[in-house]
């Protein structure tokens, strides 16, 4: 009797489909928005770079724009890949496979994370070149100018990574640990 009642409720939950569609649409919109932002900034900086080749803008500043454009493009591609992975979890695969994928997905340092080093370095180069002339007004030599930028950029990046690590430790590490424990229990290894 209870089963029948619950089954009825399960069937009634088909009405849930409208909510599911909304969720799919929202996720799709968010991903699209992010891609649009990145794909607006990347050509924008690239256009500025091309236009300024023929202007009076110092070449260092112009080259900085090119590096920014390139880094935006790579960031867009990386986040697109991450987003696709996180928004397409398949629960229809065998439990062992699902748990193995969850363990990989919630690692702090993943193989593909290394690709984000490139845009981070490009932003650094972009900052070095585009700030070159701003610091020139303070009368410091080129090496010191670069060191000043590094003295700001490296701590900012380190703080960002540390914050990211704590967020991972608080939110994702428990999931990874649970998945690992279950996997170990199933496979007995």
């Amino acid at each position, binding site marked *: 009797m*209870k*089963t029948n009642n*619950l*089954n009825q*409720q*399960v*069937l009634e*939950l*088909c009405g*849930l*489909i409208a909510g*599911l*569609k909304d969720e799919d649409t929202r996720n799709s919109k968010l991903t699209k928005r992010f891609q649009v932002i990145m794909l607006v900034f990347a050509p924008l900086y690239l256009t500025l770079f091309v236009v300024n080749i023929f202007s009076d803008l110092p070449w260092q500043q112009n080259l900085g724009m090119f590096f920014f454009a390139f880094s935006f493009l790579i960031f867009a591609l990386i986040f697109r890949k991450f987003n696709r992975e996180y928004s*397409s*979890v*398949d*629960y*229809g*695969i*065998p*439990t*062992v*496979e*699902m*748990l193995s994928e969850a363990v990989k997905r919630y690692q702090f340092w993943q193989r593909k994370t290394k690709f984000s080093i490139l845009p981070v370095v490009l932003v650094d180069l972009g900052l070095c070149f585009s700030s070159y002339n701003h610091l020139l007004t303070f009368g410091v030599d080129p090496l010191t100018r670069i060191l000043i930028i590094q003295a700001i950029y490296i701590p900012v990046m380190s703080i960002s990574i540390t914050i990211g690590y704590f967020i991972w430790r608080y939110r994702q590490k*428990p999931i990874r640990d*649970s998945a690992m424990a*279950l996997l170990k*229990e*199933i*496979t007995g290894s």
Partner: protein
Amino acid sequence: MSLNKEEQFKQIVADNGDRIARICRYYNPNHEDQKDMCQEVLVNIWKSLDRFRGDSAISTWVYRIAVNTSLNFTGKTFRNMKLMVDSDPQNLNVLLDDDELELKIKKEDRFEQLQEQLNLLSVIDKALMSLVLEGLSMREIADVIGLTEPNVRVKIHRIKEQLKQNLNN
């Protein structure tokens, strides 16, 4: 395309509503929790539907989603997950492979003890037993969990032996 998915979803739910409901009942003594888990299973069926290629039977696929969802659904409290069984004699027989013990349990009113022993099992063992209770073959259970059939057979045998031993003690 979207309408097809919707129709397919409705068909799956109509055909497998009982299965989903039973699995949800195994894991949640509370009626509200059962409903929440059912909702979660349906959400995951919807999300995974695009990737269903028909490599396995639809029922096996639904069981996978239900079991995988139960592991996620229980989240931080997964260690406290409870496996609730019916006192249906057929059910008990499947669990214990022992008619006499089954009668003994019924006679001595030790059903609660069996329930207690089941809940002392690990999460994975509970998941395996829920599939045994569903009447799935070893091959089907292996397909759901992703282990080899002999491995599943050994695991289930061990769990049953452990249950019998604990009940006899």
